[in-house]
């Protein structure tokens, strides 16, 4: 009788260990994917001073936007900013950049400038990379969430400290469509 109980206990322990290892693998996957987003966001951050320098002389009406961008970037790159805050700051910067690029259309001198054209392409590139990284992150998080919510892992996930993680959604700032007027010109 005692032997049977011991056997059941050992089996249960083995099951929990393998479940735990699987969940750790999934969680590391999401961490890794998040790090990839972070790298791309940092690249976009690095583009901001270049964009600001290139357009400052022309876009006198947008001075407020440029200052706000510089400010946000300083906050985001400051040491000790928590990851969650950085993501929020990046979302704001992304929205502002998008609006700015759309308004470039209104300045013929800027539109024809090679530097601005190259910067636009770099921004597009980094945006595409960020989008891909986010989708990868979402795929990893979905796999992880599914992992902790399905039987039998859902029985132990909470006890072992695995919590559901949120998916990435486009921030309100980024989703905002630039003003129609600036696009149709």
């Amino acid at each position: 009788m005692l032997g049977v109980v011991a056997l059941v206990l050992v089996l249960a322990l083995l099951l929990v260990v393998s479940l735990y290892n699987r969940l750790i693998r999934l969680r590391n996957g999401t961490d890794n994917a998040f790090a990839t987003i972070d790298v791309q966001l940092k690249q976009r951050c690095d583009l901001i001073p270049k964009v600001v320098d290139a357009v400052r002389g022309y876009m006198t009406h947008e001075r407020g936007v440029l200052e706000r961008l510089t400010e946000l970037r300083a906050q985001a790159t400051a040491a000790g900013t928590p990851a969650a805050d950085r993501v929020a700051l990046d979302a704001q910067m992304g929205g502002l950049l998008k609006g700015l690029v759309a308004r470039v259309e209104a300045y013929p001198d800027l539109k024809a400038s090679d530097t601005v054209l190259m910067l636009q392409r770099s921004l597009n590139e980094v945006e595409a990379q960020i989008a891909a990284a986010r989708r990868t992150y979402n795929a990893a998080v979905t796999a992880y969430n599914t992992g902790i919510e399905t039987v039998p892992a859902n029985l132990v996930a909470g006890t072992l400290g695995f919590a559901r993680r949120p998916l990435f959604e486009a921030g309100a700032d980024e989703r905002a469509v630039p003003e129609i007027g600036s696009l149709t010109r």
Partner: protein
Amino acid sequence: MSFDPAAIEHLYDTVLAPKLSELEGLRHQVKGIITKAALTLAVPFLLFWFGGLIELLLPAGLGSVVSVLSFVLIFAAVLYIGIRHLIPGLTAYLNYRQRFKHEVVAEIFKIACPTAAYDPNRGIPESVFDEAGLFAARGSYKSDDLVRGTIGDTPFEAAEVGRQYSTGGKNSTTYIVFKGLFFHIDFNKKVRGTTIVVPESAPSYRLGDHGALQGVSLEDPDFEREFAVYSDGEVEARYILTPAMMERLLSLRARAGKPVYMAFKNHRVYLGIHFDRALFEPGIASTTSREAIVEMAELFALADTIVRELDLNTRIWTKDVDRSLLQGSTEAPPDPLDAVAAQARTGTLTTEQLWTAALAATGPAHAGDEGPVARPEGTSIAIARAPGSLTVAYGGTVTMIVLLVLWIASVLVSISAARAFVTAMSATMGVGPLADLAAALPAIPVADDYTASLPLAWLLGAAIPGSLLGLGWMFRVRRVEIGPDAVHISRGLRPWPRRYPRPPYEKVVVVERAVYIGRNEGLNLVNPSASPMLKADEARWVAYEMRQALRETAASAP
């Protein structure tokens, strides 16, 4: 599709229809040869199948005669077709196909894909096809109908490609890896790794080794149902396959109506549409139809569809247009004879000019303007000059006799093995008239002892090398005699030489160390051989002497 269907219809009515009727003669020639060959085979086969009925009518004892006769006739028919129809048939077909591609397909191409160039004789190099490891890299590879150019800003090349392999061994199976259109296009985003997109249902024998890649699952359920994605970088796979791109690929798949395979590597797209049949080929049984012509136009326009569907002209990312694709640096230079053939088709060259061009293209060794060539030392070839004639006698009759003896031996072993094989088979199953045939074969004293065990191995082992040996002595050139009105060539055991009248047989050509007598008029692929394989210096000497003789005897003729 980017082309105007009305333009193709118009082209068909004004240009292609007259062209096609011009080519009708060639088509009938090809069709005629195929029909003749089929009929030649059909008669003995019918005799074989219905032999039983005829045998019923014959007196007993003569029963097996019909089966034996039909067997002999089948062999005779195969041999006859091989000698009589094979080479003229192939020549006529290649000629017809070549003219069709240059005169019909090229015209369609100009309408359907005006921003590119078409070359029916070239293809995409195998190295490009295998670059991304999309398809299984084994077996034979064939590519032609190359199209290269730009669509919008995007450089591309496309060609018809076929790849297949056989497993070999006893139960050999042939797998068609890919047969269709293959596109090689400059991509608009930077790609550092490898990402491949294949149909979810693609059989594994088609695919290359992608053990180093990982499966990537994407958000779009429709896309997931249709395609499987493998990549060495998950983020890059999603960078390439944006939600918009996934929709576009699905739409392309729907428009192509055939399985689509894709790889992204080296900033390029490799895309194959598996049609599983030959494309851009002329009709043989009947004239190439209007529908077939419109389909060819649609195929050419596919390049345009792909570039636009995949939005490759949008260059808003940091990747610049890379035109190096248009150079095709990795491919071999085109065959100079193709250029000569193209010139010949224009019909502006005289025969003399054509010969000169062809000889120049194949290298100076074939030209006739070299100085006197001395008799090489140690040669066994004897050349005898007499006024108005030249006789070349090739030695090596001993070789021929050895070949003949070996051939007779292999025939005897084949007969013995065939008899043993049929007897062994009839012990386990019914073999019908074959048993009578075997019984009609004579017993071969010594060979029968050996062939009794493993008869099939003996049969194949003796029949295959035996038939090759047979070719060796049957067609080996023994003697060539050049006279003022004809060239006489003696071959094999044939007691009388064959006569090649002059004109038109006035040319001497050396190809691969054998000498041939060519015709003076038109270009003909089939020229009679006037020597067996020789040593290089012997071939030069014999060719020189023959040219001299042809020149002198022509001058002395009235």
